């Protein structure tokens, strides 16, 4: 238990610290790297509560795909982030004030944590006890049955995201030469190569 507690505080502290660094680092590349660190720590927290599937997914998807994509974008776009952030300080006081008030209120709320009396019944676990199935298995069992509706709807959301990305960014530029594999494969030597006998010394 002690080790678990220690691990929790380590991961939690690191996650918060790297979150702060994400928004305060001067160099955007550093920000993204801190973001990746934050993801790792979050994954660690997931592991601690026994959700190893979520932990792995977080690492694979967010670190492996999303964060790396961010890194590419940040490095390839010529944006001066320091300039963008210039007005930031101007709004810091009021932002901090609002944040503080909100934080204070949330602390107040959690200080009076009264769970509704029927929560126990409402939490009728839809999954088998953890010692019988792995949580990957358990997720798989409900996601295509009890939560099929939400799962499919999420799929639609991703489809929209894809359509949106294409609609807003895909351009057919005239004059761009694209590789057409079918054309390349179907090319015949006769069409493009002409064999000529050239008499020596006369030139083409």
């Amino acid at each position: 238990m002690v080790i678990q507690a220690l691990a929790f505080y380590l991961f939690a502290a690191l996650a918060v610290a790297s979150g702060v660094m994400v928004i305060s680092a001067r160099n955007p590349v550093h920000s993204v790297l801190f973001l990746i660190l934050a993801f790792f720590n979050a994954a660690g927290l997931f592991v601690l509560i026994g959700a190893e599937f979520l932990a792995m997914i977080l690492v694979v998807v967010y670190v492996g795909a999303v964060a790396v994509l961010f890194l590419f974008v940040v490095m390839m776009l010529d944006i001066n982030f320091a300039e963008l952030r210039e007005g930031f300080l101007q709004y810091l006081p009021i932002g901090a004030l609002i944040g503080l008030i909100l934080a204070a209120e949330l602390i107040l709320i959690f200080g009076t944590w009264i769970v509704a009396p029927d929560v126990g019944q409402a939490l009728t676990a839809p999954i088998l006890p953890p010692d019988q199935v792995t949580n990957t298995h358990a997720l798989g069992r409900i996601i295509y049955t009890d939560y099929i509706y939400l799962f499919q709807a999420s799929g639609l959301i991703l489809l929209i995201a894809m359509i949106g990305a294409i609609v807003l960014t895909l351009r057919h530029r005239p004059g761009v030469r694209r590789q057409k594999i079918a054309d390349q494969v179907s090319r015949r030597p006769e069409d493009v190569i002409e064999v000529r006998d050239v008499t020596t010394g006369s030139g083409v």
Partner: protein
Amino acid sequence: MNIAVDISAIWPELFMAVAAMVMLMYGAFRGEGATRFVTWAGVLVLVVAALLVLAGPAGKTTAFNGQFVVDAFAVFAKVLLIAGAALALILAQPYNMREDIKQFEYPILIVFAVLGMMMMVSANDLLSLYVGLELQSLALYVVAAIRRDNLRSSEAGLKYFVLGALSSGILLYGMSLIYGFAGTTSFDGLAAAFATDSDAPVGVIVGLVFIAAGLAFKVSAVPFHMWTPDVYEGAPTPVTAFFAVAPKIAAMALFVRVMLEPFGDLVAEWQQVIWFISLASMILGSFAAIVQTNIKRLMAYSSIGHMGFVLVGLAAGNETGVQGILLYLTIYVFMNIGTFACILAMRRQGRMVEDIDQLAGLSKTNPYLAAALAVFMFSMAGIPPLAGFFAKFYVFLAAIEAGLYVLTVVGLLTSVVGAYYYLRIVKLMYFDEPAEAFDRAPGREITVIVTVTGLITMFFFIGLAPVLDGAEAAAAVLF
């Protein structure tokens, strides 16, 4: 869990999703030449979906473990929003042709957005609520920026996206608070949890405030309205027309359901929130509109004000209030679509004109359009016997029934202020020196829609009784 029941409940949504994907395939293979066909196909899909909604199971049906619900309220709202969306889509057709918006994805995105809205309206669980909301929001962000080469359109899309993401965050945070304190996300479960406990935990109340804030963003109620004028102005006009009706109906229906079903027993708590945002929306909507010069911005503030009036019905929290809301939304659809159809007819030398002053003397250069716009403006100002009067009347009736006198008085006063800017347009059209005439022949679709919505607005009182009955039946479901 009975799969047959589930499918029968979700039949219209299923049809729309599949049809939209078929349209997507067709468009992807045909390219830009498919746009016209896909647009009309989209209209057809919407009409069929509306029929399927009407043909759906009678009474209250829940599906997918209570994540999805079909009842009279959902049917009413769905038919209404599909009607609004279909009209907006028809309106978009000539505009898109002229303005060279060739993407066939436009109608498909609209269909997907409507799908999301229908899921919102039918949500019976915080999760399905969120999923539906995101589905429609994402589609809306994209269509707002559909003129990607136009700076203002892109700006509108981006602003909407960023602020929408923020509001989604707020909403999700509220949901997590609720889940944390109540232990369930199901509306039925929540209702049961609060029914037994007269004193709800403070965490639930704050979660409720967050959820209300997130939904208030979607209906563009003050102080979560800031995106509205910019997005309305920047987005292409048919998109604005669409924004002004369908998402408002869906979000308002969802708002009503969330407040009255899971949190129905906490009326005393949330009533104050709704009271405040309703009051603020009415005041800001009417005052800020006065100084606008762009008619689309004016319509943005007008819709903020209208949403304030609708929220009066919600603040009342009684059956009459919900009935009034549904009636208001019905009328709102026709008035707004009609007005936007008129705005779409404002073209001069092939370019859209959005300045209010350009309407000067319209009665002389284009009397038909001027008369139609005058009807819509009078109706929005709530002058009897036009439709808009009944809308306001029933909402305020409910408020008085609930004893919300301050809200009623402020509402009436702000509708007087609102009348000022609506009637200013009428005055411009009828009493000022004519500006240059608009282009002739705005398109058959626009003329037809202006005529139809204008007639509905003028003679709504004839069909008032059946609409009221329908709204009453729909409202009864929630109590």
